[in-house]
């Protein structure tokens, strides 16, 4: 690219030699803020787009409403004999005894469909939505920078994942405390820890689930760079997640189970043992990390080279 030829060289004359070393003559005067400040400003703009959008707020409201529903249903059906006879999801039997478990129950229930759906909507929309609106071409012409834009998009979606999981946990805790007794937490391994220690474990569980969702979001981001139709991207991510869950439930496919994106999602119960079941936990976190790296790389490779014709 350094050497130009033909009429172009003729037209640019001696200045062409300076091309590589030319400094920008016009910059906004006196302004030399670091890249971090610009990064944060852009991220805040991205976050406000995500969190001030009615659709996304409605999704968060659904996430907040489901723990309420579960809590009320359990309160109404709570028989003194205890319904936890092995039927239904994990933790269902413990909720009546300790409201803290409502959070674990809610996360378990929501992880099967609603949380992946919410994350798929926001992640699938991230790039495809901008492309579909045509705003992507303006962002790139500003220039936002392709790698920078993709990075901002992903960080914003991960923050949304954290918020989504946080909403579930916070709402469940509030409902659990309102409807059921709350006290020291008996772990799955039988030991009892203080309420404070139990809540700390719950925070880690929430972070773990958010990590699982961040891995799904990386898949969503990659899919999102492939199309300018956000609905298509959202549907594709959701279908991928559901297909993975179905495959995970078929024993004949046991060989591939550890490699499925959804396989380790419910392994957060490793955090509810004493001592913590580190091998399983690390397996899960490694799986999420690998998915983030692979699909992040796919998204980057695609997005930094794609022709933007929308």
């Amino acid at each position, binding site marked *: *690219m*350094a050497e*130009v*030829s*033909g*009429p*172009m*060289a*003729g*037209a*640019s*004359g*001696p*200045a*062409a030699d*300076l*091309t590589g070393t*030319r400094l*920008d003559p*016009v*910059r*906004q005067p006196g*302004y030399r*803020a670091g*890249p971090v*400040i*610009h990064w944060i*400003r*852009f991220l*805040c*703009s991205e976050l406000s*787009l995500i969190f*001030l*959008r*009615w659709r996304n707020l409605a999704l968060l409201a659904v996430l907040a409403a489901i723990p309420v529903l579960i809590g009320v249903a359990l309160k109404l059906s709570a028989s003194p004999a205890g319904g936890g006879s092995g039927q239904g999801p994990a933790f269902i039997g413990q909720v009546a005894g300790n409201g803290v478990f409502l959070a674990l129950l809610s996360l378990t229930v929501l992880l099967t469909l609603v949380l992946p759906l919410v994350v798929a909507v926001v992640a699938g929309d991230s790039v495809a939505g901008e492309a579909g*609106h*045509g*705003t992507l*071409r*303006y*962002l*790139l*012409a*500003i*220039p*936002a*920078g392709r790698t*920078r*834009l993709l990075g901002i998009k992903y960080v914003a979606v991960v923050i949304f994942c954290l918020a989504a999981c946080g909403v579930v946990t916070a709402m469940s805790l509030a409902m659990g405390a309102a409807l059921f007794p709350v006290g020291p937490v008996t772990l799955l391994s039988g030991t009892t820890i203080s309420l404070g220690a139990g809540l700390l474990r719950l925070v880690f569980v929430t972070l773990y689930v958010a990590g699982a969702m961040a891995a799904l979001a990386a898949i969503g981001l990659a899919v999102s760079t492939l199309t300018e139709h956000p609905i298509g991207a959202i549907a594709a991510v959701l279908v991928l997640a559901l297909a993975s869950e179905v495959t995970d439930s078929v024993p004949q496919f046991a060989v591939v189970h550890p490699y499925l994106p959804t396989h380790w999602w419910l392994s957060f119960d490793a955090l509810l043992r004493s001592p913590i079941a580190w091998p399983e936990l690390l397996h899960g976190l490694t799986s999420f990390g690998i998915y983030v790296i692979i699909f992040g790389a796919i998204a980057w490779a695609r997005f930094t*080279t794609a*022709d*933007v*014709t929308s």
Partner: protein
Amino acid sequence: MSAGYRGAGQRDEISFGNLGAEPLPDKISQAAGGASPAIATSGLSKRFRGGQLAVDSIDLAVSRGCVYGFLGPNGSGKTTTIRMLLGLVQPTSGDQELLGVSMPAGANTVLSRVGSLVEGPAFYSQLSGKANLARYDAADRTADRRTAEARISAALDRVGLLSAARKHYRAYSLGMKQRLAIAAGLLGPRELLILDEPTNGLDPQGTREVRGLIREIAAGGTTVFVSSHLLAEVEQICSHVGVMRTGKLVFQGTLEQLRGRGATRILVRTAQPARAAEVLAGLGLQDVQAGQDEASAQLGEQPPEEVCAQLVHAGVPVAGLATPRPSLEDLFVQLTGEGFDVDG
């Protein structure tokens, strides 16, 4: 078309100043000596994956400070060229420079000095006009957060949208949307403005305003590269033109050079058109036509004053003599093909 188009009726009394001007498709006189051109491409081509050659080896040369009209029928490759200039689409081959910086490699450094409007406005419909500009400003690494408010207001003011700044974008009329897009291009100091069909969808008042705005911006020293399929538009604001046809740049030069390309006719108003036609034919002129009270012919290389003298000498009562220049529209159609024959 006919309402705003002035070229068709233009007749210059015996003007032959540009008869000998040769079109120089590859060169434009450098307005700013020494400075790198605003836009320079060489052999720039784009073949899309479907195999379609959208842009075929074009050599654009846009010198600093000019208003360059980028003409061509729909589908002739104008927008693809603009997308390549802005680094949105990767060229299949060829080199391109914006303000002396190689693109798309230098996109992150040079594009902040370039304002653009590509294929119509695109904004977030749920945000207000002002919030939309703030969003784009936040994406700009070179923009100062502390002056954002003032710059956004100034840009809105410049396009006359200050009073609608807090209105939702979805409530904007088409003209307001278009003006907001121009405002987005004016958020920072720009050396080059690339505008793709800036008056699309505007009413006559809006079109006038945008024209005035472009003139004002150009007067401030900013180079303006404006694509259009409206000839009247280009004729009024541009100093230079490039004409595209099916991906090829078929003409590049000043507006005068484009006009000079056309074959000028000589038109004699007289009470004896038949006699005048005889004289014109006798002088060896082509395509002689006699009408009710006028005769005309292709002027060719003949000086019009010579033709006039011959007519008078032959006793033709010459009531008026004119050398109407071919309208820009005629030239455009000559260059780009007729109506449904437009290839592509």
